[in-house]
């Protein structure tokens, strides 16, 4: 039995905004009977361009019905620009979380919303999926849908992609293709630490001091403070940088050593390879 939250069960048993709208401004349809879940979402805008009314119909399991219901509550009163910002993760969070294997229900909600907005803007029914874009033949999942799920949810593995999009969950014939997409998206992702070209030119003493100060402020201190630690610059003598360190456990030898190494590594990366970090005199190195 699934571990559904009370909120999810409430939206399943008492779904909000079920039904159809007369003359809707936008309609989005995703999924199909064959795939086991499907959602039709429609909205009407008010004079200010806000979503005045929204209705849905869903075929699917409890989490699909609840995700649809949640989505309608979330977008009411929003402009299309605001509504567009809603991610599948937001829908899942609104419900207090979804089981991993059910994340595709939240993705379906978000896709229906985007399709409905698209339909409103273009004034035409959403384009049929072109066969060549489809990666997973079993569930008719396109490359774009897979890429979007990977990017927005930081997916790492094929199994995760299957949980979020269903792709790969049928015959399994496309798992290599999904892996290839994962690799591509990952390669295109900006490196976690945007590579700032470390200035390797000769620095004047003043420039060096300024750069060390900046690096400590920008790169080191926030990281330490997050864990309750801190660092203070005491002195700079040539390539010798003296700092006062406070770890989460200020008297632990290990943490002091690790901290020192961390500070040194960052300063060497951003300022100069030749820097040596030392702790201020009088500070206890050993407990």
């Amino acid at each position: 039995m699934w571990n559904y939250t009370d909120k999810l069960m409430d939206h399943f048993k008492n779904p909000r905004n079920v039904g159809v709208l007369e003359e809707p401004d936008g309609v989005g349809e995703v999924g199909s009977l064959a795939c086991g879940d499907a959602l039709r979402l429609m909205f009407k805008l008010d004079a200010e361009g806000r979503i005045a009314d929204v209705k849905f119909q869903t075929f699917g399991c409890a989490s699909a019905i609840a995700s649809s219901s949640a989505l309608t509550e979330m977008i009411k009163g929003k402009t299309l620009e605001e509504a567009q910002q809603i991610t599948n993760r937001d829908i899942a969070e609104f419900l207090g979380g979804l089981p991993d294997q059910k994340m595709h229900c939240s993705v379906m909600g978000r896709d229906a919303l985007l399709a409905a907005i698209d339909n409103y803007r273009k004034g035409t029914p959403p384009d049929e999926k072109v066969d060549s874009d489809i990666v997973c033949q079993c569930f008719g999942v396109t490359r774009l849908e897979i890429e979007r799920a990977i990017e927005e949810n930081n997916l790492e593995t094929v199994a995760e992609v299957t949980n979020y999009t269903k792709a790969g969950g049928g015959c399994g014939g496309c798992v290599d293709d999904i892996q290839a997409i994962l690799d591509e998206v990952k390669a295109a992702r900006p490196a976690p630490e945007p590579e700032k070209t470390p200035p390797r030119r000769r620095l004047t003493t003043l420039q060096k001091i300024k750069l060390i100060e900046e690096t400590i402020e920008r790169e080191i201190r926030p990281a330490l403070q997050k864990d309750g630690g801190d660092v203070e610059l005491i002195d700079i003598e040539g390539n010798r940088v003296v700092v006062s360190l406070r770890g989460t456990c200020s008297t632990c030898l290990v943490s002091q050593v690790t901290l020192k190494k961390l500070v040194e590594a960052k300063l060497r990366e951003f300022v100069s390879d030749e820097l040596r970090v030392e702790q201020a005199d009088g500070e206890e190195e050993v407990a």
Partner: protein
Amino acid sequence: MNVYLDNNATTMVAPEVFAAMQPFFGEFYGNPSSMHRFGGQVGRHVDRARQQVADLLGAEPDEIIFTAGGSEGDNLAIKGALEAMKSGRRHIITTRVEHPAVRVTCRWLRDHGFRLTEIPVDREGTLDMERLEEALTPDTALVSVMWANNETGVVFPIEHIARLAKARGIVVHTDAVQAAGKLPIDLKQVPVDLLTISGHKLHAPKGVGALYVRRGTRITPQIHGGHQEGGKRAGTENVPGIVGLGRAAELAAETMAEENDRVRALRDRLEQGLLQNCAGAQVNGRNRLPNTLNISFEFIEGESILLMLDEVGVAASSGSACSSGSLEPSHVLRAMGVPFTLAHGSVRFSLSRYNTEQEIDHVIEHMPGIVTRLREISPFVGGAAAWAGKSTCNV
């Protein structure tokens, strides 16, 4: 009201079975292999259980090997028989609707040097006997066909299949986990070599079962170690479980004829009640076990139905993709070619001798409302059928 209609998944331990087992958690804790009275007493009860199981099947006690359940029995039968075979035959025949304990085992063997034929079924779940007969070749080593299907309850003609295969010197296994206790089984009439049963499907506890091995049929143990179970299955016996299985087998043999008529009448009442009160409903499978009703409701999804049934205290199961945690509907319904409009909305009600007429009427009373409510939410009811058809979903 709590109504348990999921007896093909597992059953309640019968009070008589529980009572029979209890002393073996207390006073009678000896190891049946031991050379003292603690062991000897217990050993006699294991022997008795073996006789009771043999009697249910029309077998001899020395043809019964106790196991840890249906999955182990299936694995031991299939792998054990193939490993012991000296003929060099490399072909296995099974069906497309087996329980994973057989299906996955056979597919694993296919990946390890055997050829595998999976015989299809038709829209009503009936096995294609022509295809089966064609598939029997001089290279065929083993035929494994279930006696009754766990999802639909469809019963296969095991006696006929066994005769065809035996005439060609082929070893025959049948997974009778769902049939045992629900259908009369007489292994003096039905010439299968190997037959699996599982305790928890016939009111004995989980984690105990038995494999029937006809005298003269060779199998290689899959659990090596001590000499228990005639050297075919090592490990100190699960004495309480075995005693429980024995008592459950005895109860089943005593009550089957009478209880099955009653269960069948209740099942038919449920079936008629649902078909009459719910539009767009259809029964899956023909020639079924007396206790099983697999019924599909158009345009709605099984997991949602189950959760709404749970709200009114009714326990059942579904072949829908969502309810299983997989993304595809049941392989059994797909093998039968049940259309998607129906496959995702399938519900399996499986009864036992403990169900009552009031319970059945409770389901008949609540089901139409559940179907109506979910159809009100569904986008496919009324006017949207065109959309339902244009997808690329191929599963």
